[in-house]
């Protein structure tokens, strides 16, 4: 079975086998600066390259993004293209030290420049548009789920209503209408910034410049070159998050690696 971050799966789930919004982790967060990205590494020759910057410091975990995406895209019950994974982290057992903290991580398709999902698609249903958005043609998709296995971000799932692969489209139908993706429009903390990475004057580019050295992406070692960037992304959350799934399906914790709340 694929080892899965219990908080990260974007999926359709029944209440029985469920996304776990809160996971318990047991390490202190690193505060030392790490090698980080500057601006997008490749600027496409296309007119636009759509990208998102998530300022985690501003996320309040209200799931407005999750639900607005669900409503906007008329998703079937329990299917979410984006969500905020919430982690409770054990920090210190020293008296007087903060014992635990909350870490929030909005997740969605990373619309990679080198998408792992595209090359494995046997029908060409999954492809990357000129403007950088990775999409699935639901007429061509046969639901083989290779792309779901290939995606290092757990961003894809089978939509039970269509039996085809489903994922975030950056609300391409809204972008084409001159609007913002639903999740961005309604982000209460103002954490999600969406824009054109080709436009030097866009707020996205300005923020990427302003926070140069602090910008990170998820799973950098996978060399997928994502177009979703983060401020405040701790290195421990860049890869698979190893923790103990805590809510709603503790019996399924076998799949995740325990880092030991038991006996603590």
């Amino acid at each position, binding site marked *: 079975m694929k080892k899965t971050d219990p908080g990260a799966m974007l999926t359709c789930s029944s*209440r029985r086998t469920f996304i776990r919004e809160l996971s318990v982790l047991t390490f202190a967060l690193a505060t030392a600066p790490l090698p980080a990205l500057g601006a997008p590494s490749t600027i496409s020759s296309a007119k636009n390259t759509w990208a998102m910057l998530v300022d985690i410091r501003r996320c309040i975990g209200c799931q407005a993004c999750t639900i607005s995406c669900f409503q906007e895209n008329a998703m079937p019950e*329990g299917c979410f293209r984006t969500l905020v994974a919430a982690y409770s982290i054990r920090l210190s057992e020293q008296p007087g030290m903060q014992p635990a*903290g909350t870490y929030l991580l909005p997740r969605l398709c990373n619309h990679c420049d080198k998408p792992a999902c595209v090359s494995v698609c046997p029908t060409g249903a999954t492809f990357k548009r000129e403007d950088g958005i990775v999409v699935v043609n639901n007429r061509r998709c046969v639901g083989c789920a290779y792309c779901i296995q290939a995606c290092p971000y757990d961003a894809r799932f089978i939509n039970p209503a269509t039996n085809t692969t489903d994922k975030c489209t950056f609300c391409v139908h809204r972008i084409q209408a*001159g609007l913002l993706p*639903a999740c961005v429009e309604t982000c*209460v903390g103002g954490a999600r910034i969406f*824009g054109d990475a080709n436009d030097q004057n866009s707020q996205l580019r300005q923020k990427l410049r302003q926070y140069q050295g602090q910008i990170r992406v998820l799973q950098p070692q996978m060399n997928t070159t994502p177009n979703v960037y983060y401020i405040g992304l701790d290195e421990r959350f860049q890869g698979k998050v190893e923790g103990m799934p805590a809510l709603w399906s503790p019996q399924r914790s076998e799949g995740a690696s325990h880092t030991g709340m038991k006996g603590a």
Partner: protein
Amino acid sequence: MKLSRREIIAACGLAAGAAGLSGTVGKIVRECASSDKAEGDKISGLAPEPEFVVDKETGDVSLNPGQQVSYTVCMGCTTLCGVRVRADKATGKILRVAGNPYNPLSAARPLAMETSVKKSFAALSRFQDMGLDGRATACGRGNAIMEYMDSPLRVLKPLKRSGPRNSGRWQEISFEQLIKELTTGGNLFNEGHVQGLAELRDLQTPLDENAPEFGPKVNQVGVLSSVNEGREALAVRFWNQAYGTQNFARHGAYCGGSYRSGSGALFGDLRRMPHGKPDISNAEFVIFIGTAPGNAGNPFKRTGNLVAGARSEGELEYVVVDPVLTNADNRACNDRSRWVPIRPGTDGALIMGMIRWMLENNRVNIAYLSCPNQDVAKRSGEPSFTSASWLVITADGHARCGRYLRGSDIGIGIPDDKRYSGADPYMALDANGQLVIAAAAVNPAQILPLQMPVQYIPQGEDKQPVDIADMKLKTALQLLHEAAFRHSLDEYSDACGIPKDIITGLARKFTDHGRKASAVAHGGMMSGNGFYNAYGVVTLNALIGNVNWKGGFVMNGGPFKDVGNGPQYNLTSFEGQVKPRGMPIGRNVAFERTSEFKRTKAEGKPYPARDAWFPNAPALSTEWLPAMLRGYPYSLKALILWICNPLYGVPGLSALVKQDLADPKKIPLIVSVDTMINESNAFADYIVPDSLMYECWGWIEPWNGVPTKTMSARWPVIEPKMAKTPEGRPISMETFVIALAKAMDLPGFGPKGLTDAQGNHVSLECPEDWYFRGGANIAFMGQKPIGDATEEDLHYSGVHRMREALESKLKPDEWRKVAFLYTRGGRFQPADQAQDQSMPDWQTNRFNRVLWIWNENVGSSLNSLSGARFWGCAQWLPPGFADGSAMRKHYPEKEWPMLLVSFKSPLHNACSIATSLGVLRPDNPMLLHPRDAAEYGLSIGDIMKVITPGGTVQGKVIVHSGVMRGVVGIEHGYGHKELGVRQHVINGIARPCRLDLPAGININDIGLTDPSRGNQAVWVDGIAGSAVRNGLPAKIARA
């Protein structure tokens, strides 16, 4: 026979497999609606076409002719944010909801009202990146709650019970039958005669001859509501002013009542309970105690947004003191946010420890506290002042012990009828040790005098000195000082479980930022000493003098008022208006004013009263049901429940009253006005449908946290789903009371129900009559009326739907202005006017009265059970019961080692479980600290049994360090027994029910009754009368 989900879905002609997951209402409706199950677009699937298109070069907006976008107000929680609702015109279905960009509750940088509606849409778009900074949002709940609009669980037609009370069997009846039966009564249920509302409206006959102070019989009709969600003024007009009952109470006593009461004590009004909020955008340091910014609270989004911005790109550092770790913490901000765990119900120990340290280390603002009045304060550059220097009589035997010394107490000439009124001055001690009139002082006064004079020496040669030694005068600050020094820092630390150096560190940090620090609390104060804990939190602010300062503790901007005697219409008073009289059923008056007291006093044993009285509390919905069912102070003949759910929300209430509530002999008539069947109105005899969210009217003032004047407009942006009255109007609270008024011929309603500013009669026969005229008052308020809505505004906002009604109900110069309000979703003072233009470091809307370090109303009241005097300022008092006995005396730690705490969900309110939010967070495992878990041999996923003196529940446990040791944390919003959980049968047909909804537990099901009140009432704070749900004693075990 129960109808399963599978059957509901099958009834829609869909394969059960397609919904084999969990089929919420949203899914069922969506799939029923799209019978051909279209695949939609090959890339975007079933996503509907966007609501409008914004040209990326010009910013020009083209509407989607099939959709309507309107600005109105959410009702997903009590914040009542301004939202934009996107509806499909053909079906009336709501497609999505986001924020109103004009409204400060939804937008960080609200648009100027002059901006046209069309331009407001461009401001939300990608055009020039405007939609990023101009973002106007709805939260997760605000997005999900729209699913209720189409819920098959809604009540849309009047229901009358067709079986015994709470049998779940109903008959739909016509509106005419409803009104006739309710007004005239009769043998309505074949259970004997039931008095109707007309007969019960006896404004003359005392309801109890032996207690005329209870008022007339009409007071035996009582109305429980929830919050003023924008329509309360009309309900109050009907029930209090036209019908004439005294009894109307909201849900505050079982919401955040303790905090409001504690705040009301400092701000000097224990009925209206003013309160402040941190000015988050300009603050440097804030302590949140029992309230979690961005996790929950009111205003939820605005607080979350401001905290998110200030902690990442502003100056803010903050600490959340809470037994439970929540989303208020954010580790990506490192030490900008901190969580300090605390034992439930011990905030007072932390605060008094801080105050003690501040007093010992010269960290209170002595110069500020020494200002005895506003003028001296202003001259010292202070925008507020306190009673710290005012003198209090503390001599035990003195008749006015606990009261402030007044001029008349020492011979300053005051007419007898003005004694102890506002004209009777408060006294302070000047620098020379002389008593002076506080209001007349021109210099700072002493606040911690080393010596109190023994005489008052009046000015004027013929005046004799007055001996004051036996009054044992002390300044208010001396009394606070005494309270703080009753315990050592070690004792405070032991009590609250916070290390001493954290207490002193918090105090140091709190006093390191001048006026740019503040402390605030809220629902976390609902413990058995919540009043004093809360009074302590707000007192911290007074001690550093931050009230009214930019960056400090600031007041709400207030509304543009719809009701009142406004510039266009008088919506307050009318001919034949009743002035309700008599004591309210919640006993929030002094026992000493009752006939019972006269009798017991004459018998030589004035105390205890038969049960507790709460002279310093507001209307107490916590006390209502036990009071009316026991008939103390009196019983009710009819109970009206308007969108409220005390049986779910009041800890310990359901178990205490549900048997009696099912007995029609106890309360002969129960009428509910509501949108759903909940745990409380399941006991109703009749349910009247009410409007829901975007079909609903209202003028809504922010509850707090918006420093500029704000009034949000709610209007039916789609056709309401409720059945219609004979006049063709949707049945709702408004059309219900209008029809009752007509049937009983009550004043203030009907063809001549209202008057305009010139005194001409106008009608009050439909909701538009009321809300449009309220709108006219709002539009014309202030120096200059607002502008007119253009044809373009009307078209773009969907307000053209109401054009005919607006034109016919309003005067020619009014209707476009009222339309302007609806097109923008309200009236909003520009956000840059939060601070005073002439004093930019002060807020514009300031609290101008004294801040009471000692509250004399509290400090002079006696406990009606023990006869003991209450202490009048902040103090540390362990949680206790109404007679003053400590909770641990009744329920010792040895037997009940754990404490339960309720915490607010970042997602759910008390009724949002039946939406797609329920899928995200389907139940609420109880939080347990790893050490406690180890002690009890519990691990994640185990089923734990929780036993309190009030009952037993069991549920899953989750183990992590995000909870205080010795505490079980229980998230609110779960454990429902109604709202679709139970099967109701209407007209013999089983209604849908939801097998997944009862998931989780409700802490209120195991709330306590008060052993010092014979367990005949629920556990409430002895002063505030507010429910206790934090710090419930418990034992736990593996189930």
